């Protein structure tokens, strides 16, 4: 059984590097043009080139999204852009518009991946694009494991499935709720997430006022328990959603799925509980298995009364570590203090923790509490940290071994 590619979002260069550091086989990113997620820190061509150099040096791939549904005139310069991306050496394009797919196939030798925005739900539609020359299809998020298994058997094209992150409540690429209610183009990068708003529902059978509002919102996807089946049915790539998400989210989610895939591939015993506990630390919205187990039930919906926010545990990002001095340079992300025990999230240091006995600011002055966002801090520790390692507050009842500084 081939090991599926783990594909992570890169909202900017830093998150690209974090994703690869934590084990992504590939990242996807958007350029300044032709890409959805207009509010993400989309990449310039120079950024893309740097990202490609960084990724390729570490054996990872870079896919660029050109997944808008363009209006007339918005494809001006697209073929020049393709040529630039080809020159840079990206590994593939993610496209949703039939016109963009066709232009990419005709005017470049770049592998073309059909976006989930095409909402492809059956093997005939998948094979329509396969027969035209695309290399991969990113399946609609409305498919069950059983549907994916059958579809897998009926096509030779590479298949990619989402395993983690936000879900469109609508079939993707077919929604104009945001266009209508917020004058923001969902399919050109301006989605206002109108499906997550609270609505009054008016009868004849059902009624709901704003105090107990009706919502279309789906819980985020989390498929830890479904990955073994996706692996066994021969999926080619597993995708994490979230170009807008934080460094901590990217690191935690990529690290968890990386270890899960590797455990499966090695044929080692699988303790899903461990992976579920780990992935829960990244959640910023409640999660469910989407459509993978069949028609979603009430438990997969995000009704207003369920809209709890998990606790933020991201304490600091490691920027540097001086092995001779045994000192780390940290960047604060949420308050912590001397005496706190912080968990180390690092591909190289599983289960490691650090209890803070002394903390200094950038000038070397001792401080008791790191309370300023993005403040640079110095931490003495003999734990050999690396850039992009993460320190986070320990979960209650954690049973990791604690090392004092």
């Amino acid at each position, binding site marked *: 059984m081939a090991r599926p590619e783990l594909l992570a979002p890169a909202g900017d260069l830093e998150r690209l590097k974090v994703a690869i550091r934590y084990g992504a086989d590939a990242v996807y990113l958007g350029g300044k043009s032709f890409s959805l997620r*207009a509010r993400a820190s989309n990449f310039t061509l120079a950024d893309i080139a740097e990202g490609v150099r960084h990724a390729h040096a570490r054996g990872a791939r870079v896919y660029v999204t050109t997944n808008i*549904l*363009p*209006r*007339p005139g*918005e*494809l001006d310069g697209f073929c020049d852009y393709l040529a630039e991306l080809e020159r840079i050496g990206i590994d593939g394009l993610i496209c949703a*518009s*039939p*016109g963009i797919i*066709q232009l990419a196939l005709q005017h470049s030798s770049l592998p073309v991946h059909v976006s989930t925005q*095409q909402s*492809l*739900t*059956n*093997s*005939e*539609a998948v094979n*329509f694009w396969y027969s*035209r020359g695309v290399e991969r299809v990113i399946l609609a998020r*409305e*498919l069950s494991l059983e*549907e994916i298994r*059958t579809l897998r058997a*009926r096509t030779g094209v590479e298949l990619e499935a989402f395993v983690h992150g936000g879900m469109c*409540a*609508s*079939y993707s*690429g*077919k*929604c*104009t*709720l945001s*266009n*209508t*209610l917020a*004058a*923001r183009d969902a*399919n*050109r990068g*301006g989605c206002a997430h109108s*499906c997550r*708003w609270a*609505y*009054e*529902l*008016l009868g*004849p*059978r*059902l009624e*709901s006022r704003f105090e*107990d509002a*009706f919502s*279309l919102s*789906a819980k985020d996807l989390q498929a830890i328990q479904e990955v073994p089946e996706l692996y066994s049915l021969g999926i080619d790539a597993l995708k994490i959603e979230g170009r807008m998400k934080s460094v901590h989210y990217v690191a935690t989610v990529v690290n968890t799925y990386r270890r899960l895939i590797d455990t499966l591939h090695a044929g080692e015993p699988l303790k899903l509980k461990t992976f579920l506990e780990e992935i829960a630390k990244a959640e910023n919205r409640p999660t469910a298995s989407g459509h993978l187990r069949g*028609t979603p*039930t*009430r438990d*997969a*919906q995000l009704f207003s009364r369920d809209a709890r926010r998990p606790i933020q545990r991201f304490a600091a990002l490691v920027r540097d570590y001086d092995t001779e001095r045994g000192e780390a340079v940290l960047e604060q992300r949420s308050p912590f203090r001397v005496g706190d025990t912080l968990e180390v999230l690092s591909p190289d240091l599983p289960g490691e923790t650090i209890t803070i006995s002394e903390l200094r600011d950038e000038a070397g002055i001792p401080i008791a509490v790191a309370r300023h966002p993005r403040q640079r801090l110095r931490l003495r520790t003999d734990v050999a940290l690396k850039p992009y390692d993460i320190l986070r507050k320990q979960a209650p009842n954690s049973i990791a071994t604690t090392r004092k500084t």
Partner: protein
Amino acid sequence: MDIIVAADAPLVESLKTSSADGVIFGVAPFAQRFRENYKPSRLRELLKDVSGAGFDVWLAMNAIIHEEELPQVKQTLEALRGVSASGLLFADLAIIRLAKAVGLELPLIYHPETYVTSAADVRALAAAGVDVHVLARESTLEGIERIAEETDAKLAFVGHGHLNMFHSRRHQLSLFAEQQQQSPPARGIVHYIREHSREGRCPIYEDARGTHIFRPHPSAAFQAVESFKNHLDFLIVDSLLLEDAAVLTAVEDYARARSGQTIKGDYRQYDSGFLFEQTGLKPGGRS
């Protein structure tokens, strides 16, 4: 520019003496957002019944098709072989391959609702065998004109009716009813949703294919007819959620507008869809 009306059997009776140039019938069970869908055997009767009216008849199989449905889709297409219709309207690209596989020779009308937004899309799909392209519902008039000027393909646009804006595979009303410990509403029963800071109530209903939500007001395109005459081959009037009388009035008014006459209906409750609307990437429709 022909006027094509999405219809059911009772409405077609009235349309026979109207200015409509064609009708669309939903094919069961693979049409969605139609007043009623008909099995191929019943469609043959309907086609026979309207044959004297000089209508174009399009058959619609515009569902998003899931894997387990493919054999039945194929059977349905086989059952349509030889019907005297003038086109097959579809949304799922599977139909292109399956229609060819079963030897169905009807012209193919691609209506995915959002994906045909540029001339490049039209050219890509024409190369794949599509004969008529229904432009995206969020198209502006300026965009429609530009696409028409950049291609030779036959173009259609849904200019009138309650435009669908959301389709989920989830049964959102039933899930909410369950959450509220109430029994789910029957399929097809229209409710409304309203966001407190916005005007208008959006119709919402469930069917076997999930949940559908529509714009708060029906849309009309009379202001664009003069341009449509030069740029579109077909103007589609959607009758879903509208009364027969309203549809018939609109059809006559489009025919009047097409020939330069004054329209007679009252369309104060209608909007103009996205034809003249500024939408963008930021709040307020800014780009």
